[in-house]
């Protein structure tokens, strides 16, 4: 996790297009300026960033399903629940399953667990649109390589 670059996901652990599901790993940094404010003397991973981790994981699933031809944008967060605190250094398991693929949007059920215990969950809606330009598309592929996106899916795109 590199919070200063908004990189919430470290590694895609599994991508199953048949099951329309994905799981990823995200390790909360031990030190970060965010923790100086949230909260002084009691560092906690902000809930909004946990949502972002679920959104990025869901996003890779949508990218895979669209074979890198289209790009997801977070549009809606429903029923987000934070069930326990997340602290610096913890290793999170993030997962998402596609609930519905509509015309120009996708809905996922996403969750985060910590050592098998639920941390948070939400239903996310993502708009699915054409890449705004070639640079974004190229950067998406670079990021895919960084997070270990399965190359056979990336190559087919």
């Amino acid at each position, binding site marked *: 996790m590199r919070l200063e670059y908004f990189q919430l996901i470290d590694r895609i652990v599994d991508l199953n297009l048949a099951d329309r599901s994905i799981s990823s790993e995200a390790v909360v940094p031990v030190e970060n300026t965010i923790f100086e404010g949230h909260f002084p003397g009691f560092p906690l991973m902000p809930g909004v960033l946990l949502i972002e981790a679920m959104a990025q994981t869901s996003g890779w699933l949508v990218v895979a399903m669209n074979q890198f031809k289209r790009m997801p944008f977070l*549009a*809606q967060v429903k029923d987000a629940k934070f069930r326990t605190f997340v602290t610096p250094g913890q290793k999170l398991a993030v997962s998402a399953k596609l609930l*519905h*693929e*509509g*015309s*120009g*949007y996708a*809905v996922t059920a996403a969750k985060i667990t910590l050592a098998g215990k639920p941390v948070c969950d939400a239903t996310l*809606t993502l*708009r699915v649109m054409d890449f705004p330009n070639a640079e974004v598309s190229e950067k998406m592929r670079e990021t895919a390589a960084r997070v270990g996106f399965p190359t056979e899916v990336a190559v087919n795109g």
Partner: protein
Amino acid sequence: MSSTYDTIANIIAETCDIPRDTIKPESHAINDLGIDSLDFLDIAFAIDKAFGIKLPLEQWTQEVNDGKATTDQYFVLKNLSARIDELVAAKGA
């Protein structure tokens, strides 16, 4: 009106918190009911689920943008209802 109309009127009333009796077959979802694009995603999701279809929102938007269709054809509720019936019939064909 058809049960399709009633279903979508109920979906809109619930999703957008619009009093059910203000929703009419002649209502335009955007111009009369003030439904924005984000709410429409919710409505599309609920319609897709209720009817087992995929509302072709992108295709409709493209047709409107290209001047090949008017928003009335897709977003006046009695017309939306007819489009849904066509999609359901096409699925079963």
